[in-house]
């Protein structure tokens, strides 16, 4: 399909700008002006609408069909949250208003949302305080590590390393590194959980803390999590819980109770805000009491008269990590979602998410190789069977064959500790009927792989493109139409 620039017709307009009603046209000095107007495409409104409608038909979303992309929690995004985020009282609120003298009173509704969300997340995680500012999960990780660093600086601890299991998301080591720490990877056991002996060996006074994804990227809850946290605390280390997989335990268990000092929650995963083709997300960070003073500036507080205000006077704070109060419209959607589920609903979320994952795991057990053959939490990791691999069918081929059967593929080749990994996360919003249809598709792919593997290797055949050449993309870089 043509690029938008290739559809441009000189002189065509999409929007008519309002006539100027002021008497003068300002003549800015020529040296400050651009030589030529920017070459933006020239199209009618209908041209633009058709272009993007056509593009949308080349996209697959949760609303299209089952999207079991592991570690991403592609649950249904309730429409009511979109409606509420577009209320003019929220959408047209200028972020600098509360920074005017007395301006907090102009934004009481928005401040109430932030304050109440803080309280809800405290109760759900067991933490003592939250910052809503982190703009994504990885941004939450960086914020958490900065809090860890501020704590050690304050205590005059000389700490240089952060321990991270080898099964962690790549964002964990990257976040620790850009905050100035050396990363020490810890091997997992063959059961897929942390190797306590390896952890003990790596433990010393240089250790600033540990980042642990809980449940982990194999979809397993590490039963030794409390012992692990205690070990880290024994060297005055700080324990960081990557809450990317929080959907598995929401309403059932709380990270603070296992001994975690810091947690980030991906609102776009657990709390159902849309993923937007890659973002925006939101990654609020919660901390235990001893770390509350280090949370970023500002925090919303409730005054004695029941009004809300922003608190800036926080001398121990790590400072400003976002321009304002976080991705407010994302936080707002997640707040609405929590209000609608309530205490009963949240428990049902994790129960059904875990049930759905185990249902898939057990039903596929005889056709695919489980990474670890044990009860999983919200997601399971499997690989093609040995026979499938012998006939040349790999995880990527299974993924592409699923596309032809109307499903979005699982995450493939992650975690990297599992060969040919396929990470399946069904989420609680999917029905048994959908799961059954998916399981049948997987069985079908497994069967065809043994008989006619070339058919699977040829997939997908139902999409406008098939297996783009990624090597050529790097070799002949074409990154913009100029």
């Amino acid at each position: 399909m043509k690029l938008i620039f290739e559809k441009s017709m000189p002189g065509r307009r999409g929007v008519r700008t309002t006539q100027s009603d002021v008497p003068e046209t300002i003549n800015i000095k020529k040296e400050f002006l651009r030589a030529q107007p920017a070459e933006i495409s020239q199209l009618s409104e209908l041209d633009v609408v058709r272009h993007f409608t056509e593009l949308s038909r080349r996209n697959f979303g949760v609303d299209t069909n089952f999207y079991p992309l592991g570690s991403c929690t592609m649950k249904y995004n309730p429409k009511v949250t979109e409606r509420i985020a577009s209320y003019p009282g929220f959408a047209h609120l200028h972020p600098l208003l509360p920074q005017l003298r007395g301006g907090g009173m102009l934004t009481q509704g928005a401040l109430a949302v932030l304050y109440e969300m803080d309280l809800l997340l405290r109760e759900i995680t067991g933490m003592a305080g939250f910052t809503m500012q982190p703009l994504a999960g990885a941004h939450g990780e960086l914020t958490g590590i900065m809090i860890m660093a501020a704590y050690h600086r304050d205590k005059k601890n000389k700490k240089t390393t952060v321990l991270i299991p080898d099964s962690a998301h790549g964002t964990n080591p990257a976040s620790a590194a850009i905050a100035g720490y050396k990363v020490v990877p810890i091997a997992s056991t063959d059961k897929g959980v942390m190797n306590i002996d390896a952890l003990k060996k790596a433990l010393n006074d240089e250790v600033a803390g540990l980042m642990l994804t809980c449940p982990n990227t194999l979809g397993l809850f590490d039963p030794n999590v409390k012992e692990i946290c205690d070990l880290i605390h024994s060297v005055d280390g700080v324990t960081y819980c990557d809450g990317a997989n929080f959907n598995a335990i929401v309403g059932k268990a709380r990270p603070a109770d296992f001994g975690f000092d810091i947690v980030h929650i991906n609102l776009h995963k657990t709390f159902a805000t849309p993923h937007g083709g890659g973002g925006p997300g939101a990654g609020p960070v919660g901390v235990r009491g001893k770390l509350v003073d280090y949370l970023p500036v500002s925090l919303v507080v409730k005054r004695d008269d029941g009004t809300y205000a922003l608190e800036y006077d926080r001398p121990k704070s790590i400072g400003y990590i976002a321009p304002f109060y976080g991705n407010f419209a994302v936080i707002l959607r997640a707040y609405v979602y929590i209000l609608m589920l309530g205490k009963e609903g949240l428990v049902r979320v994790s129960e059904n998410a875990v049930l759905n994952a185990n249902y898939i795991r057990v039903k596929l057990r005889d056709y695919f190789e489980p990474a670890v053959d044990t009860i999983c939490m919200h997601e399971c990791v499997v690989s093609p069977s040995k026979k499938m691999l012998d006939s040349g069918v790999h995880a990527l081929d299974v993924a592409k064959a699923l596309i032809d059967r109307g499903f979005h593929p699982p995450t493939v080749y992650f975690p990297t500790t599992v060969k040919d990994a396929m990470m399946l996360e069904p989420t609680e919003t999917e029905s048994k009927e959908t799961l059954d249809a998916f399981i049948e598709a997987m069985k079908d792919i497994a069967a065809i792989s043994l008989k006619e593997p070339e058919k699977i290797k040829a997939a997908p055949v139902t999409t406008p493109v098939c297996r783009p050449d990624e090597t050529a993309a790097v070799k002949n870089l074409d990154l913009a139409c100029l």
Partner: protein
Amino acid sequence: MPFIANTDEQRRQMLAEIWLTMERLFSDIPKKFQCSRLNLPQGLTEQEVRETLAALAGKNSIDLTLFLGGGFYDHFIPAAVYSIISRSEFYTAYTPYQPEVSQGTLQAIYEYQSMICRLTDMQVANASLYDGGTAMYEAMMMALRTTGRNKVIIDTSVNPIYRVMIESYTRNLGIEHVQTQCATGQVNREQIMAKLDNETAAVILQNPNFFGCIDDFSDIAEAAHKKGALLIVSCYPISLGILKTPGAMGADIVTGEGQSLGLTMSFGGPYLGFMATKMEYVRKMPGRIIGRTVDRNGNKCFVMTLQAREQHIRREKATSNICSNEALCAMTALVYLALMGKEGLRQTAQLCADKASYAYSRLTAIPGVKPHFGAKWFFNEFVLDLPKDAADVIVKLIEKGFAAGFPLSRYYPDMKNSMLVCVTEKRTKQQIGMFAEALESVL
């Protein structure tokens, strides 16, 4: 239960089929850590939650006439923007890991990258960063990596919100920050030239700067390049409808806040950090990048590319830790630009400048109100000196229905009586006139 498909009967059936119980499913979590019941409210129905939130939305003042900018602007947004980005094929998708089912997102982001390049006169842009502030921080880190140096120069005319963010991010990293003091409205060239040396990784500037003043940094780019340093310029994309581009000035990395490109203000986010650079630096650039290639059958198509820079491949050696970005906001910016078109964007920028110029004339005609900087070279924001504390004047104007501007003393302690005023294309001559009358009445 809302949003959960399976009935209780189906739950029982599924558990029976896999020979498990709900208790067994959670048995890896030690019993003592399983909470019985959280202290949370009962769930609300859609009707209830809409009423509750409508009441909260009603407690926010959105009826003020806005002359408040400071890097975040009240621009007109065509209805088609919302209608297009509300297509759930776009907004309920995730990162385009599977190109065959993501050509919509991938092509749109490629087009977005192209739009940003055309707007800034740069060669390559990434698929978005969180906001203008984190984009500036990432650009600084990129310059440090590229040059292998450890010192950056940043002028006080750069948005102070971004400057405090950069300070926070680098507190653990031992980077030398040199601040040059903007005195005339334009950047302090003398100080910048004096501080530029062979240790400098980058000079960080903004155009139009936080005070609204416009500049041409070509001389600074040249001086920086002579010392082997990079020039980073943060810019306001709407202004590029008419203003000289950072690319034409010789900037090496361009960043900015994309909120003005069709995104609602939404009390601070989600926004859009954009970043563009020269081709020679593309491998040092953070964030996702979409490239055009061909598929197995020779069809043109799009994929995520140069992933060897990113955290999911490089882990602690990655150029950044970013994973989720602001893709839907990038798409919003693309749709906005496509609707505005070449002429619409130029006219919008010109309207902003014209109306600001008119407001400047009206407001500086009020006895006691003076322009803070001598020169009249601004885009759509300017600084006024009032005869009294600006913060007090702004409070009084709120009572009259105006968000009059930003009190600069919040970030510049010696500018107690100064107010930053912003005028977008949405303000009318009549509103500007009423604002001038209101300001005069409270002085």
